[in-house]
């Protein structure tokens, strides 16, 4: 068997042998030519080495062009953010549904504890009124209000009792309006 030259340059014979070997390993040669080439392989070490080299070269070339350049690979790379986005939306949706269920659950628990709400709301209202009033005298009044609101039945359709403080407040407001009217009367008219 002859041996192939290993210098960086390539002889015409090496080039021819490599090209034949590449066509052979690519399955491009017709059957008759493939068989003829195998007869050469039986006696020519250089041809065997060319087949080994081109076989390895073809495998590596395939890897090189497939991994980097394939549109399928590129498509999958671009598809990745879209998949992430879909997953994010699914996560957001799931969280919203879970929160919805939690909210409904809490609401149902609140309905069960409804009797306490009247007292709580009464306390809040009393606090607001106390803040609005801003003096001790009216703070004492708010205790009465708290008492009234606590005992107030929402389902009672009978004629509502108007609390005394409301009547007093309305009376005071009317009195202030009357005083204001008097105070802002034109001077000329007074003179008249």
């Amino acid at each position: 068997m002859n041996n192939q030259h290993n210098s960086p340059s390539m002889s015409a014979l090496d080039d021819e042998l490599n090209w034949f070997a590449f066509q052979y390993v690519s399955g491009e040669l017709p059957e008759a030519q493939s068989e003829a080439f195998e007869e050469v392989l039986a006696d020519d070490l250089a041809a065997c080495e060319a087949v080994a080299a081109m076989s390895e070269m073809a495998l590596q070339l395939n890897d090189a062009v497939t991994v980097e350049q394939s549109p399928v690979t590129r498509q999958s790379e671009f598809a990745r953010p879209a998949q992430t986005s879909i997953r994010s939306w699914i996560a957001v949706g799931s969280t919203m549904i879970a929160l919805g269920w939690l909210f409904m659950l809490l609401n149902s628990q609140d309905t069960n504890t409804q009797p306490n709400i009247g007292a709580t709301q009464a306390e809040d209202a009393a606090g607001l009124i106390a803040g609005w009033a801003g003096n001790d005298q009216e703070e004492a009044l708010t205790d009465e209000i708290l008492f009234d609101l606590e005992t107030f039945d929402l389902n009672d359709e009978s004629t509502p009792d108007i609390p005394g403080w409301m009547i007093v407040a309305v009376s005071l407001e009317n009195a202030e309006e009357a005083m204001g009217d008097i105070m802002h009367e034109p001077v000329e008219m007074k003179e008249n």
Partner: protein
Amino acid sequence: MTAEKSDRLTREELEALYAEHSDELRAFLRGVLRDADLAAEALQMTFVKLIEQGETANRTTFKGWLFKVALNEARGIRRRSRREEKLLRQPVWQTGNETLSLEETLIRQESVEQLRDLIQKLPPEQQTILKLRLRDEITFATIAEQLELPLGTVLTRMRAALKTLTLQLRERES
């Protein structure tokens, strides 16, 4: 009888021959058989023959002897597989994945990276033919039809690309 025994290859010699030639033989067998598993089987049988009959070979031409035995084993396996024609039409890169060690995988990856760089430096018309044949697995005849080029032109471009890549790889190795 004693002389025959003394001519037989020692374990160290066998291991040295395997380390030196097994990669090239495997690539050769894969090129002939177009099947990674069948190539592995042929390689094993070749070294079994070496153990059994190695003393009959001229030690200065072991490589030639190994390739010749490997080719005979490959042709025998191909005939027995009853898919001789199909195997001969199949390109070597469709032959399934061979089992590589971590070191072999790293070496392969490095070579592939080198080739990728070199391919990008080829003239665009050569890159096109190379990719259509190896990536898209279109035969040269179909490429010529699709690109409306003479078949000779397609083959010339592919051959030029292959020559450039082989030379540049050799330069890098040397």
